[in-house]
């Protein structure tokens, strides 16, 4: 669009035609106050705070609904405007309860800030305030009508943003009230977006309300540890008996990929971290029972058993299972520890997507993977399989937002009517289990059509869909774990021929990181085969075993046969996940690192209580390949990081930890320690200070940054900007395979997590909040609810 030149407060500025005055002002650093205006949501013009003077217009105009016009002369601050805003606040405060001293929003309330700025300090109002009792709408949503200023942000973010439409407005005039969809309660996705977006304390969180004051918390921006989308979450923590307890999660600073989005898990399910079930000290099995021990004794025991097995049975008798939740550094360290210190390739993890097949299919092609940000802007999106609303809430948000704001064309291909079909320009309901066939079909295999057509999808419609997809030139193709092996290859070949970009959907917060870091028996970090010569072979100071190791299921079989003498499980619960008979592991010495006494931990010989992602530093990679930094937000007395545990085990075994972790610089030997207890976390705080000053703290063998150095140096595509990473940005990394080997990947080993919006694997079971909101929520089949509140009708020009 053409540009328009206007003058705001004497400043000449040029902005694209159609820009709203409020945004034009913002672009030149002039903040026009508002309650109801919210970027990306429909226009309201309701709060009248953004009134400005426009030359030649007799009345004050709302900057939020007025598009710029050529030659417009605007004043944003004058006595007249100040008075208008002041009086608006006086009016708002008339019925506002002014219970700021106990209000959750106190201290971070837009009404407070605005009142402070415009000085509506004196109240002229002398009559009874309207009152309504507070209501609890769900375990996590409370509503206080008296505090509500009716900015309609909650209604819009719930409807337009979340496509849930669970909030409405009822009555009129001063009786107008925000209402939940089930008269006295809410049935919704419990995302809490309404609470987060509320400028005052009208909507408050059941998990947080009346717990603390905002200024009493330490706020840390880190990455959510539930699904694989990599939302930034700002965790508010305060002191507690057990350390620093996280009491709130939000993303008001909009610093991450997710903007202001968080789902129920990101917002509330941090509370597993202070679950009563948390392990606080190492346990060893004595007389068939797990009893507390000291860290030293635990490490000694583990080291001695590892050494014993190595001596008597050799490295092949040891197996390692890694995690989808631990950091890249920990994953990398774990496989390095396995391959070098233990000398085995018997390492695997719970695979939730066929990343190896994906990497292989991409064949090193650069710029072929899409970041989560790309989903927000893509002109067209093809989604095959998966149900992002449940399993990838941020992805679903990005898709919805893109469709809503940029009119992206969405193609949904699924065997059942997932909620995102409501945003779809085209929805093809294929026969169950035919996702792979669909990939083959669009890649040219007409024979595949037989398996794809369904009562809801004719052969003609299928063919038309393929024709339409062939015309798309800037497609982002997103596929779930339904697609594996050759089907991924077929899909990627189809897309690459049309400059498409891809996203392969895995589950859990660092499943992609686990895959990239080589938690595979046959692949090194970067998906290179263990047998062929790679930079790892030349760089690492020890020899890498040349033959592929056992995968997870093979390890279990070996254990059953008594051939697996020791099993080291880090942050995983294979017994429950793969439904393995615990007896199968009775002949193995089992070491488990976990937060909880999981099904697998219960049968272990040693259990090490560890920190979770919210209690440590490091990096994680989202399923799209967006790498982000973890910052320590909470602290739990008695636990240690997985990283530290691995290093300590190696050290206790007598392995030179410097070979594992290249820590320390020239002459730097200061061990920052990782002392735990009342003053725990000092090293991390130090690390935070250093990173804030763009210094890299890698002075101890427990320092993940040192490991990151090596990852950046050796793992393909991880040579990313450290500065961007440290400053909290997401940095996209392509999926580059280290060599062009093909035929890798074991589709049969992929086991999707099948989490819903309200579950999160083993972790979710320990979140009290998640369990309370886990009502039987199913996506409502009310497609026209979208039309029920038509934002376009309220949209300005």
């Amino acid at each position: 669009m053409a540009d328009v030149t206007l003058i705001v407060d004497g400043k000449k500025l040029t902005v694209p035609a159609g820009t709203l005055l409020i945004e034009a002002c913002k672009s030149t650093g002039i903040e026009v106050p508002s309650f109801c205006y919210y970027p990306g949501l429909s226009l309201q013009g309701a709060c009248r705070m953004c009134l400005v003077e426009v030359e030649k217009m007799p009345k004050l105009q709302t900057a939020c609904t007025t598009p710029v016009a050529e030659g417009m002369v605007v004043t944003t601050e004058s006595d007249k405007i100040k008075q208008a805003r002041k009086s608006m606040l006086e009016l708002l405060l008339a019925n506002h309860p002014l219970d700021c001293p106990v209000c959750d929003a106190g201290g971070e309330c837009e009404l407070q800030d605005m009142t402070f700025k415009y000085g509506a300090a004196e109240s002229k109002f002398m009559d009874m305030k309207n009152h309504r009792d507070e209501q609890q709408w769900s375990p996590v949503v409370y509503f206080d009508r008296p505090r509500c200023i009716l900015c309609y942000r909650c209604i819009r973010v719930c409807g337009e943003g979340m496509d849930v439409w669970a909030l409405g407005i009822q009555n009129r005039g001063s009786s107008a009230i925000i209402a939940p969809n089930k008269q006295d309660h809410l049935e919704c996705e419990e995302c809490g977006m309404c609470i987060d977006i509320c400028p005052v304390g009208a909507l408050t969180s059941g998990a947080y309300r009346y717990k603390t004051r905002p200024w009493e918390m330490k706020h840390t921006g880190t990455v959510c540890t539930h699904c694989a989308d990599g939302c930034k979450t700002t965790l508010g923590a305060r002191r507690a008996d057990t350390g620093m307890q996280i009491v709130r999660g939000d993303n008001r600073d909009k610093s991450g990929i997710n903007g202001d989005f968080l789902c129920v898990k990101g917002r509330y399910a941090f509370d597993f971290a202070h679950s009563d079930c948390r392990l606080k000290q190492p346990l060893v099995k004595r007389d068939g029972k797990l009893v507390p021990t000291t860290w030293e004794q635990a490490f000694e025991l583990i080291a001695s058993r590892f050494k014993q097995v190595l001596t008597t049975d050799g490295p092949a008798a040891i197996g390692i299972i890694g995690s989808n939740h631990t950091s890249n550094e920990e994953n990398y360290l774990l496989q390095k520890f396995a391959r070098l210190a233990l000398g085995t390739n018997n390492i695997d993890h719970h695979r939730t997507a066929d990343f190896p097949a994906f990497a292989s299919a991409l064949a090193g092609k650069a710029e072929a993977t899409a970041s989560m940000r790309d989903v927000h802007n893509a002109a067209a999106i093809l989604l095959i399989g998966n149900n992002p609303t449940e399993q990838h809430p941020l992805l679903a948000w990005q898709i919805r937002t893109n469709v809503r704001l940029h009119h992206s064309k969405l193609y949904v291909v699924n065997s059942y009517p997932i909620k995102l079909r409501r945003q779809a320009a085209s929805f093809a309901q294929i026969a169950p289990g035919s996702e792979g066939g669909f990939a083959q079909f669009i890649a040219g295999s007409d024979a595949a059509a037989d398996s794809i057509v369904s009562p809801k999808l004719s052969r003609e419609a299928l063919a038309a869909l393929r024709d339409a997809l062939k015309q798309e030139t800037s497609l982002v193709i997103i596929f779930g774990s339904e697609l594996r092996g050759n089907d991924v290859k077929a899909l990627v070949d189809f897309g690459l021929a049309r400059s498409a970009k891809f996203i392969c959907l895995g589950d859990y917060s660092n499943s992609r990181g686990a895959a990239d870091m080589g938690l595979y028996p046959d692949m090194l970090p970067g998906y290179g085969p263990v047998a062929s010569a790679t930079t790892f072979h030349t760089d690492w100071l020890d020899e890498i075993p040349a033959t592929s190791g056992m995968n997870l299921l093979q390890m279990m079989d070996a254990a059953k046969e008594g051939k697996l003498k020791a099993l080291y499980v880090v942050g995983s619960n294979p017994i429950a996940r793969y439904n393995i008979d615990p007896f199968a592991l009775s002949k193995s010495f089992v070491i488990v690192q976990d937060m909880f006494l999981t099904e697998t931990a219960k049968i272990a010989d040693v259990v090490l209580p560890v920190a979770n992602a919210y209690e440590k530093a490091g990096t994680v990679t989202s399923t799209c390949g967006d790498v982000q930094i973890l910052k320590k937000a909470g602290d739990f007395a008695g636990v240690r990081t997985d990283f530290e545990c691995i290093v300590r085990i190696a050290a206790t075994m007598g392995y030179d930890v410097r070979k594992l972790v290249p820590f320390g610089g020239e002459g730097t030997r200061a061990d920052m320690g990782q002392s735990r207890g009342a003053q725990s976390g000092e090293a991390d705080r130090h690390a935070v200070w250093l990173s804030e000053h763009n210094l890299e703290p890698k002075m101890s063998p427990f320092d993940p940054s040192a490991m990151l150095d090596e990852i950046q140096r050796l793992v393909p595509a991880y040579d990313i900007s450290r500065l961007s990473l440290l400053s909290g940005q997401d940095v996209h990394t392509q999926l580059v395979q280290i060599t062009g080997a093909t035929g890798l990947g074991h589709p049969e080993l992929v086991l999707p997590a099948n989490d819903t919006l309200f579950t999160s694997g083993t972790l979710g079971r320990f979140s009290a909040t998640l369990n309370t909101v886990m009502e039987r929520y199913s996506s409502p089949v009310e497609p026209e609810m979208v039309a029920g509140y038509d934002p376009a009708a309220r949209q300005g020009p």
Partner: protein
Amino acid sequence: MAYLVSHPDEVKVVSRRFGLGAANLDRYLELDGYKAVQKAITMGPDAIITEMKASKLRGRGGAGFPTGMKRSFVPKQSPKPKYVLCNGDESEPGTCKDRLIFEHDPHSVIEGVMIASLAVGAKTGFIYIRGEYRYLVEIMERSVADAYARGFIGKNIFGSGIDLDIFVHSGAGAYEVGEESALMESLEGKRGVPRIRPPFPAVVGLWGGPTVINNAETLASVPHIILNGGEWFANLGTPRNGGTRLFCMSGELERPGVYELPMGYNLKKMIYDVSGGMIKGKSLKGVVPGGSSVQILTPDEIDVGMDFDQVLKAGSMLGSGGVVVIDDQMCIVRFALRVARFYQHESCGWCIPCREGTDWMKKTLVRFHSGGGVAKDIDNLKYLAENMLGRTFCPLGDAAAMPIISYIQKFRKEFEDHLDGKPCPYEKVHEAALV
């Protein structure tokens, strides 16, 4: 039932067929019915609009926007269907004129909608009538059905090749829906909350299509203008204020009623001559000349010609034609309270100043009128109203603020007489006022 009145000074145009049984289609045809629309078909859109402009007809809903000009804003070409919407949501306190039109001359509204549709190229017209007027909804539905039955509306009207549908639509109780964009929302099945403007309805209206929205009286005037010419109509009134107007005379008058008088007719004469003056024993305290939303005029301000421009000059507005005459036995604070209660009840609640301001004004006046007032309440009320003025999302906020300001400005003494715990000097506090 609403009875009809008459006075020699009346110039009957819109009310020409009142009392003549014109709700019957045959009778309407005898009284020149459906001639105008046939003439309009031969004239074509441009000529209709030219005639409308020449008539100097201004919107009878209250704002007084020139009707011809409003129609000329409708784009000739539109990818979306165009609509004509008759605003029969008559709810302005003091106003009861559209009711008579619907009752006595329903076909004139249909004909008005038809001509408006022809002028802008609309294929569908809606007649929105407030829900309380159920008997009028029924009369209109019957009239529309009669017109369909004769082929006056529907396919190929009068052999013109033009298709035109008209539907009657009932409201369900909301003053705010009288605001044209809220009216559209309501017709679309939504809460009657006004829309952001621009775009104006003439460009983006019902379901996104260009829409002409006119008051029922405005539309009922149109056939007469087409038949007799715009100039004829213009000459009935004053410069820039064409034609006649239905004035609804209410209050303690000897002969209250709805009178059709030329625009610019003297207000004082309207009260003392046309309406027979105040009933015995009462004298005039003030006049609200255009429905409850406008400023009060004191007895020495009423020697004014009743057209949009002259009344504005006199410090009030012609508004909806509802002339409410206030007698000396009415307490102005009580009157103000009733007005404030109305706007508090009818505010849609969308924007802060109207929602909170009307609530605040009502609460203050309830307390004030019951003897709980303090001196600064008076200035606070004025401050409040002044700060609502011109800053609300739609004109309802202004409508609530303007009269209150005028009562305080012109009758401050009466407010002061309520101070210091004194009971209302006029009468006991009405209990109903406290709810």
